[in-house]
């Protein structure tokens, strides 16, 4: 693409140098609309930001100050690539809440669980490899798989999570096509974006299907302890230590700004992840790790989690109530038992991405469904999150959104008979909306 024409301007002189994997990294209208959605005038039901202002800031400030005073030379020094040993112990006690019996040696601390995802992709995926995921799935996981030039294939879910039979069929189909799946990436509990949880009675069956097909399970579980009813779900990893790489995170249970997540992996896999972590970041922030460890060892974190759950329960209820109250006929949605998200499906003919400008102009934002699929599906769907705005704002936002959908339905009535769906690949929203 380099040219010697003297008149050529403004082009990126390195255009010919980019790797193929950078091909999808382009500006998008959806990202532009999200730039507006971050303004306080807009009720954003788009972002997945936890409400960190509910944390005991004084206590956090105090423990951070103590950390620097008491352990400054360690907190400000390089650490090991695998992560702080004391924190890894603490992480094991957190995972025990979900029935996981783990050894600290098998934990790798990462920069958010996002980096753990990246490291797993790095050590397992070659260009052209296949990853099977739920449909829809976590948008940034799709970005990671795309960055390693792997293909994502979706398996349908119902209100009780992925269908084991559909999963088995997908594996078999891929095997026959000569593209066997390497990984099954799943967010089994309070899924982002669908708000769906894999039912207890399906879990062993899913593990069995994966074991038979020799597919490694990648269990991404940042929301497990944000159950809004009953007890925490038992993690997949609890019942299949050899077949599951488990990803955990303090982003939703403590604070995403600290960027502390982890991977728990069978020991051979763990060795590779540690080496990959070393080349990716040398070592994680010792300060952030020690701060998290200190928080968990000195603060009543279980009580804090309970407070978070109460707050999110109130918000979820506000969202579900107002959806019930305002949405026009033909709109349906999931009823999450935890986490942050509700998945809304619009009536036939509507396109949530095409509708987004109208919504933003009406001062409410959501994430269009197509971003959560690798194959352009999800046109009629959208993700709403209830984690960040307070209940009153959620109610306002849902009411506005219902009006926007009503207007769009009228448009569809006008044009529906003559319109045919336009094509166009999925556009992924920015990381601040993951």
């Amino acid at each position, binding site marked *: *693409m380099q*040219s010697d*024409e003297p*008149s*050529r*301007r*403004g*082009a*990126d002189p390195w*255009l010919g140098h980019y790797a193929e994997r950078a091909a999808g990294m*382009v*500006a*998008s*209208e959806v*990202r*532009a*609309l999200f*730039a*507006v959605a971050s*303004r*306080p*005038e*807009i009720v954003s039901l788009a972002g997945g930001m936890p409400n960190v202002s509910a944390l005991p800031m004084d206590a956090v400030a105090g423990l951070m100050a103590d950390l620097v005073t008491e352990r400054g030379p360690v907190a400000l020094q390089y650490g090991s690539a695998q992560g702080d040993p004391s924190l890894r112990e603490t992480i094991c006690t957190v995972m025990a809440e979900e029935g996981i019996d783990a050894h600290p040696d098998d934990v790798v601390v990462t920069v958010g669980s996002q980096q753990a995802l990246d490291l797993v992709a790095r050590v397992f995926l070659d260009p052209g490899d296949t990853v099977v995921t739920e449909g829809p799935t976590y948008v940034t996981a799709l970005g990671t798989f795309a960055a390693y030039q792997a293909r994502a294939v979706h398996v349908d879910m119902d209100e009780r999570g992925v269908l084991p039979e559909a999963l088995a069929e997908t594996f078999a189909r891929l095997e026959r096509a000569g593209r066997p799946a390497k990984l099954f990436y799943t967010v089994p509990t309070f899924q982002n974006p669908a708000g769906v949880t894999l039912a207890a009675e399906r879990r062993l069956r899913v593990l069995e299907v994966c074991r038979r097909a020799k597919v490694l399970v990648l269990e991404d579980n940042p929301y497990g302890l944000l159950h809004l009813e009953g007890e925490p779900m038992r993690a997949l990893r609890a019942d299949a230590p050899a077949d599951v790489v488990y990803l955990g995170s303090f982003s939703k249970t403590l604070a995403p700004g600290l960027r502390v997540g982890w991977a728990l992996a069978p020991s051979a896999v763990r060795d590779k992840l540690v080496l990959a972590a070393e080349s990716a970041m040398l070592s994680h922030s010792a300060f952030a790790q020690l701060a998290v460890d200190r928080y968990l060892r000195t603060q009543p974190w279980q009580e804090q989690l309970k407070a978070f759950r109460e707050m999110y329960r109130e918000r979820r209820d506000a969202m579900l109530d107002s959806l019930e109250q305002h949405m026009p006929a033909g709109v349906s949605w999931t009823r999450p038992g935890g986490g942050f998200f509700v998945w809304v499906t619009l009536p036939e003919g509507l*396109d949530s991405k*095409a*509708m*987004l*400008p*109208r919504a*933003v*102009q009406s001062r409410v934002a959501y994430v269009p469904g197509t971003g959560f699929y690798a194959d352009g599906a999800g046109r009629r769907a959208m993700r709403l999150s209830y984690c960040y705005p307070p209940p009153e704002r959620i109610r306002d936002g849902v009411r506005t959104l219902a009006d926007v959908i009503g207007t*769009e339905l*009228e*448009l*569809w*009535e*006008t*044009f529906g*008979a*003559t*319109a*045919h*769906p*336009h094509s166009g690949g999925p556009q992924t929203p920015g990381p601040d909306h993951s």
Partner: protein
Amino acid sequence: MSDLNVTVIAGGLSPEREVSLRSGSRVADALRRAGVEVELRDVGKDLLPALAQDSPGVVFPVLHGIAGEDGTIKEVLELAGVPYVGARPHACRTAFDKTTAKAILDQSGLKTPESVTLPKQAFHDLGAAALTARVVERLGAELFVKPRACGSAFGVSRVESAGDLPQALMACFAYHDEALIERRVTGTEIAVGVADLGDGPRALPVVEIDAGTGLYDYTARYTPGAVEFHCPARLPAEVAKEAARVAVAAHQALGLLDLSRTDAIVTEAGEVFVLETNVAPGMTETSTYPMALEEAGLDFGVFCRDLAALAAHRHGLSV
């Protein structure tokens, strides 16, 4: 010049917020390098109090889209009684409304693609099938559908056949209640900046936009390298001259001040069809206006500073 201070306003709540923020920080940066003290501000509840208090100097609005280019911000600045760069409210309103602007350009003897403007309601009341059929009968099926007032190609669709039209209209109506449906004119896409540093509006070198087979849409506009720009445009000298004349004529016909950018298509026969004239041209890394300034040998920062000084002068301030 050192006692000139400028408040750059960027952001706002239009879909072009991100573009505006990028343009704004680039203008602010260039002004600083030209020795001007700059404050960068968003549109929000704190704006008016700030303009009332801090002796804001000259305001340089770099807001795109609704409320930025439709005259609202200028009206507000008039109310605040502060000097500002760019056209007066009424002229902004006229230029931003593509349908009205086309009529004015038409009266001035400038060519714009043949078009119709129809509100959403008309399709509802008269039946979409019947009305779109009439549109295709009149204009053909190779069309552009655009929101009557919106920028950065938001809500714009290229229509290849009659079957695409309903979907294109739906996409457009998500941004605005009225659609401008234009006959597609094929040719070379150009952008012509106009600058008036107090000695009358003059055209900057013509920028040619080569989007290949693609559309010069939002992604193409703001992904570096997605389209090729040529400045000066690869046009015969007399055609480039005509394009320059058209851009200046459009700037004058619409009653604009200081700066504008006219987007146009040059046909094979060398005819120039105006698509629209922008009162707040984009100033990002991939925008055409700064490219044209560079080709003209003008320093971006000095240019912005001179415009600000001019605005101060218009307001009766001496700097």
